Each structure stands twice: as C-alpha cells, then as structure tokens.
C-alpha cells in the first residue's frame, strides 16, 4: 500500500495528534511553549486558582521582551509601574513553576521569536506555540508554529496540548532569484500586498521555490514572521542543509546519536510529489521590487518607485478604509513614495532584528550620517545579536551614523515600553505592523526592509535603496 501524498503541514500535524474527535477536532501535542510577560500573567494566575501545575516545564521557555526598556539600567529598575509589575510577575511565575527563563540580566534575553531559534529550542518538525501572533516566525525551520491567546496559553501550560482543527494547505511559490536590493522582507510584504490581510485566513502557508531556497535562515524567518499579517495560521518552509547548519551546535539542539536520528527524521519533512494544496499563489522572484507600506494595513504595499494610490482604485469597504488611512497618514493620492519625509527610523523587531538585518543596514550606513533632526534607533533582537554586532564593528557604524544603539527587546515595534512615536511623527520601520497607533498614538508607520530604512535615515525621506546601492531598478 502506498500512502497518499502529504504536504509538509500534513506530516507535522499527523505526528502530533494526541486524540481526534468525530467532528475532526484534535488535541495536538505541543513540543515547545514560549512565554512572554504580556500574555501570560492571567494564564499563570489561572493555574494557581485551580491548583494546576505546568505539565512540561522542560519544554516551556520564558523571556520578557515587550515591556522592557531598551536603555541602560533596566536590570536595576523599570520606571513604568505597570511594566515593572508585569516583568516581575514573569520573574516570579518562571521561578514558581520551574520553567526555563532568560531574565533581562541575561545576555541571551531578547525578543522571544529571536531567542527561541538562537538557543536551539526551535527545531524542524516541532510544534511551537506562544501567546504572540508572530510565533509564525519559527515556521522557517519547518516547525508548525503559531500564536495563541491567553486562555490557550493556560491550556498548554496545564496539558501541553492545544485543541485545534486542521487548517487548509496553501502554497506560495517564489520562482527564480531576487534582484539586487530586494530582500526577504520585500518577498513577504509583496505576498501580503497581493493576497490581502485576509488572503491566508484558514490556511497554513508553505513558502517554496528557488528564491526561498536561496534565503538564509534569517531571511526565512522574516518571510514566515509576516505570514500572520496575511491572515494565515502559520507559515512553513521545508528544512534543508541551510536549516541543519543553523541548528547544529545551538545550546539546545541535539548532539551525537540524537543529532543523527533527528537529521534523518528532518530529511522526511517535505511536501510529497502530488500532495494537494487548496490554494496556490506563484510570484516571480525577478518581479519583486523593494516595497514600502503607504497606509495603515500591512496589505497597503507599493513598490518604492510608485505613488500613493487613490481610494477610488479599491472596491468595497476598502474605499472608505483607504481614505481613512490617507487621512491618518497625512498623505495625498498620487504623491511619489520617495517624496515622503520621515523623522524617525526604527531598525529591529522579530521581523528584522537579527544579525543579517543589522549587517544589511550597516552596509548602507557605513561612512554616512543620518539626516539632520532624524531620530534613529537600532534595537537588536537579542543580547547575543547585540554582542555579535559589536564584535563585527556594526555597532560603531550605527553610532557614527547617528543611530542610538539600544538593548534588546520589542521596543518601538509596538511601543509598550518608553520607545514611542508622538502624534504626527513619521517612521520608517523594519517591523511588521503599521496599524493606527501601533508605534504610538497618532504615529505614522511605513514598513520596509532594513536596508531601505537605513537609506531613508540618511536621505530624510523614503528612498529606493537600489539608487543608493547603484544597482538597476
């Protein structure tokens, strides 16, 4: 008997079903549970109230990232009382329940989705959850990874399982190679621009094709990170030599015989020839340009050499939404993107806060200065990324260019800590969401790649990085 061909998603799913009810509802086993301070306090409180324990503390990893200031002295004192209470609650919960923990005093602390892979917690074929929508990031390893709510955090803590219904399979193929100046960020934003923020709803996306294969692990994480902005439950990329090389030698990656066993299992993690996808999107790598967002939804994507669209170009409810976005963003239809002036630049987040992102930004900034009056900051994704960037001399390039060089955390990606935009301030950001108020009430966000953000910092307005690099558009 030959088994029916299965997708990568099918295979990982099948290997984690604990129980399946008649209506198809499954109890799915969770291999890794990542925890941060904002979405977990009520879950731990729930355990205390019911006298339950954490079922698998050895598979549970916590790190504070959303609230923590990114300036010196934060290990001694956090000024904001509510932030301090949340971080202290995590300190206590980690200790009381005996889970792995990277406090702010630990050099390994950072954004949870950067720390997980960096420490080798995330490995191919695993199920990974976190009370955070950007858990999709870990899909870059061929792990089934998605965000959950706080009630589900409590459920996973107590049972190490999640109640789930299977999603449908969607394939996003990026054929050929990317052109110079075009990055993983441009791939993932272009896909959302094409399919919309609801285009992936109900699906798990597998990204494939030559352009995906040619990405580093860092780039693949950037792609999967924003699967959620496209509405998908998760993004996946089949593991390959690049993946194995990244995992090997990480603190929590297997060694010796276990490594060999893991490797032979990982090599079975690919979509079988002829497996069924419910939806397929194909984009030519050569057609992707460096892109930015103009509005207040991640689907508001345009090529940098384009213009701000008019609401009349849309249909349905999007006409009103587009007008609202233009008003909020203070833009007029038909305006060239490169004429948009900015006053703030944020390089960081779980989308683009890894070493490769900092290298790309530093390459643009070397020997240059940010435009007068520009507030520019780099927030490395983890303490280890920060240390490596210092070792490679990148930190000095940022400092010489006039950037602030911060400690690791989420920072201005969601502005829960002191790093925020003021009303009307306009920011070139490497993060993932441009919602109204995301980076501070009244703040205006344009999403883009690290190289594009760096180029904008120097120019004082949005700019086509290809012009700066001297490559053809």
């Amino acid at each position, binding site marked *: 008997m030959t088994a029916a061909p299965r997708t990568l998603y099918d295979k990982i799913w099948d290997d984690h079903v*604990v129980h399946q*009810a008649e209506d198809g509802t499954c*109890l799915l086993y969770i291999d890794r549970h990542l925890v941060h301070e904002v979405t977990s306090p*009520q879950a731990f409180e729930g355990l205390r109230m019911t006298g339950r324990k954490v079922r698998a503390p050895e598979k549970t990893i916590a790190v504070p990232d959303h609230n923590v200031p990114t300036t010196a002295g934060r290990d001694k004192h956090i000024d*904001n009382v509510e932030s301090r209470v949340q971080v202290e609650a995590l300190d206590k919960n980690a200790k009381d329940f005996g889970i792995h923990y990277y406090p702010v005093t630990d050099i390994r602390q950072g954004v949870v989705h950067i720390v997980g892979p960096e420490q080798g917690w995330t490995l191919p074929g695993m199920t990974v959850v976190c*009370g955070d929508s950007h858990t999709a990031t870990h899909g870059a390893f061929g792990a089934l990874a998605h965000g*959950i709510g706080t009630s589900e955090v409590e459920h996973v803590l107590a*049972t190490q399982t999640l109640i789930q219904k299977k999603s449908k399979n969607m394939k996003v193929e990026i054929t050929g190679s990317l052109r110079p100046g075009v990055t993983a960020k441009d791939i993932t934003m272009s896909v959302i621009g094409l399919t919309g923020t609801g285009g992936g709803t109900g699906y798990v996306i597998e990204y494939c094709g030559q352009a995906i294969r040619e990405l580093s692990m860092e780039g693949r994480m950037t792609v999967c990170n924003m699967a959620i902005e496209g*509405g998908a439950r998760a993004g996946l990329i089949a593991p390959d030599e690049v993946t194995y090389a990244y995992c090997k030698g990480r603190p929590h990656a297997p060694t010796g015989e276990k490594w060999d066993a893991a490797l032979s299992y990982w090599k079975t993690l690919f979509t079988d020839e002829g497996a069924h996808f419910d939806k397929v999107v194909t984009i030519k790598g050569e057609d992707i340009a460096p892109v930015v967002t103009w509005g207040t939804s991640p689907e508001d994507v345009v090529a940098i050499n384009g213009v701000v669209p008019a609401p009349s170009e849309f249909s349905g409810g999007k006409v009103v939404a587009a007008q609202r976005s233009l008003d909020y963003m203070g833009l007029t239809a038909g305006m060239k993107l490169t004429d948009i002036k900015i006053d703030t630049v944020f390089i960081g987040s779980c989308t683009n806060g890894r070493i490769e992102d900092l290298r790309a930004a530093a390459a643009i900034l070397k020997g240059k200065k940010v435009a007068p009056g520009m507030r520019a900051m780099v927030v490395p994704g983890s303490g280890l990324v920060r240390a490596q960037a210092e070792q490679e001399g990148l930190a000095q390039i940022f400092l010489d260019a006039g950037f602030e060089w911060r400690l690791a955390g989420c920072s201005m990606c969601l502005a829960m800590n002191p790093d925020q935009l003021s009303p009307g301030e306009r920011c070139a950001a490497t993060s993932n969401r441009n919602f*109204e108020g995301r980076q501070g009430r009244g703040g205006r966000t344009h999403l883009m790649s690290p190289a594009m953000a760096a180029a904008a910092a120097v120019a004082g307005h949005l700019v086509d990085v290809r012009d700066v690099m001297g490559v053809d558009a």
Partner: protein
Amino acid sequence: MDKFTTLTGIAAPMPLVNIDTDMIIPKQFLKTIQRSGLGKNLFDEMRYTLEGQEIPDFVLNQPAYRQAQIIIAGDNFGCGSSREHAPWALLDFGIRCVVSTSFADIFFNNCFKNGILPIILPQDQVDVLMEDAKKGANARQTVDLEAQTITTSDGQSFGFDVDPFRKHCLLNGLDDIGLTLEKVSAIDSFEMTASAARPWV
C-alpha cells in the same frame, strides 16, 4: 465562562473593514495582570480624544449604542495580535456577539474561550444586519445559538454555521482545560511514544 444560549440586544454598526486588535484595545492597556476592567478602554483611541474626552461621533458613545451587546462589523474583524485582551475588553463592555463576513483566526478562537460568539455571514446578510443596526436602540437583534439563527428587529432571520464542539462549550459554559484533562491518559501515552520516536524533542 458564562454560558451563551440566546441573546437579544442592541447591535452597534461598525462598517469599517480590518478593525484590528490595536484599535479594539491599544497596547497601553495590555499591561494589566488581570482579565477584568478593560471595557472602559475598548476602542480607546477611536472613542476618546488625547485629553480623554469622549468623541461624540464614535458609535459606542452615541446614546443609542451605549448598551450595545452585538457588533456588526466590516470584513476581517480582529486582525493583528493574539492579545486576548481584545475579547476581554469587548466582554467587559458587554459585547457578547460580533458579526462579520470574516474574522482573523486567533481572535476568532479567543472569542469562544470567553463566551463571545463570533458569527460569519455572507456580505449581503451582513449588509441587512448593518442597516438594521443603524436604526438605533429600538432595533434589537436576537441571536439564538441552539437554533443557529440571528434575527433583525423586523423579524428577518439568517442561519449561521458554528463548530459543534464550540457550540457545545458555549451553550454549557464549559472550560476547555477541564475537558482536556479528562484525556490525560491519551496525553501520557502520546508522550511515551513520541519520546521514543523523537528523543531529541
């Protein structure tokens, strides 16, 4: 969790598409370590000025909708973050049901865990409910979960789909964790088999 059986209440029209979780509950209110008390900050930046004054135009500030229990919304309601603070804030305000053509996945899940019923209907039916909601406080809509219907103030009824397991949990106010722990022996045996097959996990 409170049971959800039937609900008759005021429906607030919010036709905007892509209402995201940052709109529903801005991040400055995520610093709480409790579930309750978020209702006053529901839709905070749309509802209040920077100085904290109510914005009279915003639907939930209008006298007719202050007691709303249902929201009729534009496409893709609840997109964005996984924050369960979004349904907590809705619930704390008094909202028990949201109707749209589509919802973001995590938000949709989170609703059921908190006794809120999200209903997906086709555009033309959402349009009818939206128009009905615009009539104000005297136009009460009725949701019957057992029968899987929602009815406008003038008696027009639409059927909706709901996952049977979730329906059962809502109707009975059941706690997921308790239900799962009844299957603890299945979890134990899965762990044994899986750790033999994949010892590196």
